[in-house]
């Protein structure tokens, strides 16, 4: 058997097939065999959509049964792949996750309707600040700087977008201000960790304290006193992309959104392309993995780190703008509420890869809307556990898949020449 000769790093573990199998079994038993009696109706179209799809009533427990079996089938396929020492492809995991989600939705909404487009659309909108924050964090971590201050950048962006847009009556200026604000926070982090060689984690934590303090103070002293003039930005217009937005389900979810959502959907693949397909990205990754080698071939480690961290801050600042003018409107006290830390988790869950991280951000966005919606259709359901799931998943990911999710090698290590 050739497997015996492989070293530990080269072997594909059986952890993920087993975890998938366990999850499939849970779905099969709880949503299928012990499922609730009654129909759940999936609403694929909204009332005013051009193309109307029929409503889909399904028996809740049958749906659980079928999804559970399909999930078990995927788990066994993944097991077979692992036996042959082949990795399970990502689309398999995505399908697996979708099946589980469908079963959960059907179970929760027994006797009720499930507005698919609404849930998916809101999940995306809620995921955007997380996604943009995570892209910011990812850009920092890829060049070897830990960014715990995403929370601070989101807050700065949210604050500046709301205030500048209110004062100048220009959303463009609001967004620009948010991005500059995020970049400034990043620059402090960059200067402290590159020039002063301070502990990056500590600087990040401290920046959070400082920015929370500053925004709280200005909010209390200024925004609440003069709310009409400085904290009443309204929200960006919703842009409907012609034709594309008429596609059933996908149209209203993706192609009928605010500019912030479109920006996120452009930034994610762009970052993927830059990181993995261009010279610029290769250099950045070299700096994050082996700064000495990068330095030896003439790449300036300090400069690369500084600019990637700064541009990452712009992305996170934009994420902050998505919270105020791209969603809720006015700025609220400590409104980031931990989203920055979620973004940090998303970076790790996404294994420092932009596309996977974007999906992880969607998972968190989905968990937020699921919590709100579950409260309505299934009162009494302990929604606190839904809120817990993404964090628990992150812990499982870092604990169980250590070999597979590896941070950039030089992460959090200052580089000194000589």
């Amino acid at each position: 058997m050739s497997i015996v000769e492989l070293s530990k790093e080269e072997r594909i573990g059986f952890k993920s097939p087993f975890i998938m199998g366990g999850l499939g079994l849970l779905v099969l038993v709880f949503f299928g065999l012990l499922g609730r009696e009654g129909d759940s109706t999936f609403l694929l179209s909204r009332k005013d959509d051009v193309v109307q799809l029929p409503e889909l009533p399904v028996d809740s427990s049958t749906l659980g049964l079928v999804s559970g079996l399909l999930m078990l089938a995927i788990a066994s396929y993944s097991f077979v792949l692992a036996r042959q020492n082949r990795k399970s492809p990502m689309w398999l995991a995505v399908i697996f996750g979708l099946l589980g989600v469908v079963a959960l939705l059907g179970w929760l909404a027994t006797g009720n309707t499930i507005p698919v487009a609404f849930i998916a659309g809101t999940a995306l909108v809620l995921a955007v600040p997380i996604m943009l924050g995570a892209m910011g964090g990812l850009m920092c971590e890829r060049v070897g700087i830990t960014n715990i201050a995403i929370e601070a950048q989101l807050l700065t962006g949210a604050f500046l977008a709301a205030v500048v847009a209110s004062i100048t009556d220009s959303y463009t200026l609001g967004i620009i201000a948010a991005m500059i604000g995020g970049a400034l926070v990043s620059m402090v982090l960059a200067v402290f960790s590159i020039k002063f060689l301070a502990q990056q984690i500590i600087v990040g934590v401290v920046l959070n304290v400082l920015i929370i303090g500053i925004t709280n103070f200005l909010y209390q002293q200024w925004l609440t006193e003069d709310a009409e003039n400085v904290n009443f930005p309204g929200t960006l217009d919703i842009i409907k992309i012609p034709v594309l937005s008429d596609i059933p389900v996908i149209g209203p979810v993706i192609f009928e959104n605010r500019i912030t959502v479109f920006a996120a959907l452009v930034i994610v693949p762009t970052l993927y392309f830059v990181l993995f397909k261009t010279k610029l990205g290769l250099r950045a990754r070299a700096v994050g993995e082996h700064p000495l080698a990068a330095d030896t071939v003439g790449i300036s480690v300090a400069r690369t780190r500084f600019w990637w961290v700064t541009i990452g801050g712009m992305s996170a600042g934009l994420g902050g703008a998505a919270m105020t003018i791209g969603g809720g409107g006015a700025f609220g006290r400590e409104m980031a509420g931990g989203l920055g830390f979620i973004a940090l988790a998303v970076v790790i869950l996404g294994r420092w890869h932009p596309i996977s991280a974007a999906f992880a951000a969607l998972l968190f966005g989905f968990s937020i809307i699921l919590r709100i919606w579950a409260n309505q259709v299934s009162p009494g359901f302990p929604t606190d556990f839904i809120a817990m799931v993404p964090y628990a998943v992150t812990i499982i990911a870092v604990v169980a898949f250590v070999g597979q999710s590896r941070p950039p090698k030089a992460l959090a290590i200052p580089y000194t020449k000589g």
Partner: protein
Amino acid sequence: MSNNEDRFSQALKEILAGGFTRTIISVILGFLVGALFMIGSNPEFIESLGYFFSRPADALGAAWSVVNEGYGALFKGAIYNGDADTFVKAIKPMTETLRLGAPLILAGLGLGLTFRVGLFNIGGTGQLITGLIFAVFVATRMELPFFLHLPLAIIAAVVGATLLGALVGFLKARTGAHEVILTIMFNYIMLYFFTFLMRDPALLQEQAATGNPKADPAAETALLPLLLGDEFKLHWGIILAIVAVFVFWWLMERSTIGFRLRMVGYNPDAARAAGINVERTYVLAMGLSAAFVGLAAANQALGTQFGLTPSAHANIGFDAITVALLGGSNAPGILLAGLLFGAFKAGSPSMQVLGVSPEVLGIVQGAIVLFIAAPPLIRAMFRLPKPQTTNVLGEIRDRIFRKGGAK
């Protein structure tokens, strides 16, 4: 003669290069940054800026009066209120500082311990909440005599927190997962779990359930007794904190365990080569750290006659990070830093009364620690000398102690 002068200037250099000087400068700078924010957001000052060049005294006067009022209110609310009519009322602010500083000191000791081992425990909140869950269970769901109930509740808080801390240490040691991620995630998981427990009357929700997540008040037998009588809210939590400071000092500076912890902190590879089990030390460090945080949880759960809500952690887990940093992760430093930030909390209401948003203290707190975090920054700003390799100060200290000492 010249030799003496050299020694003098060398000693001065050492003082200037030392952590103490930097800490004082950082604190002063932090207050200055806060003052700038207070001035900048003051309407009178902004108005007088319009005619700054014709009458600059107005602007400067406005600026001075804002800062004076703001920090004056802080002093009155946190240390000594000279306007009070009775002595009890005059010193009450000081007791409030002690009361609010106690949990910061306790949690600060916990986080400081991990910093010394080279770990970053960002999970103060999660560990504190776990402690709260255990303590609330003992304090509201058990009936025991005082001499058993209080100690048991305190021990429960410590055990609860320690379990979570040790779990993080174990996961790190076993799988290499980074403790920062683990602790942040556990913060949220424990917060939601705590909220869940407080939604169900069969679990921890108050008997007179109102629908909101809230726990019963702790039984009187489980409360930390008041320290200075009914006039003051100060309770035995501060005694707990002072004892903990001494235990921490002994543990870190005098015990073999502390030696092991510090050694791993200085250089894990060398420690491993010297035969120390680094992985086990991580578990030990996280557990010990969380144990101190658990004492802070006991202080929170047993120091109030009101039922706890999900926000009972009061952000102490994060504030404690700043305490530990400002305190240089050593016992006396953490004691002083905890008292300083406790004073901020105590002084907030009286600033509010004056119309100065007490949120400015959050800025001061953040700015102080930001300056602390980068020693080279302060050195560059004030042209302080680099850390000295000579030890003239030590020699002087030795001589003084030898003269007056036993030998």
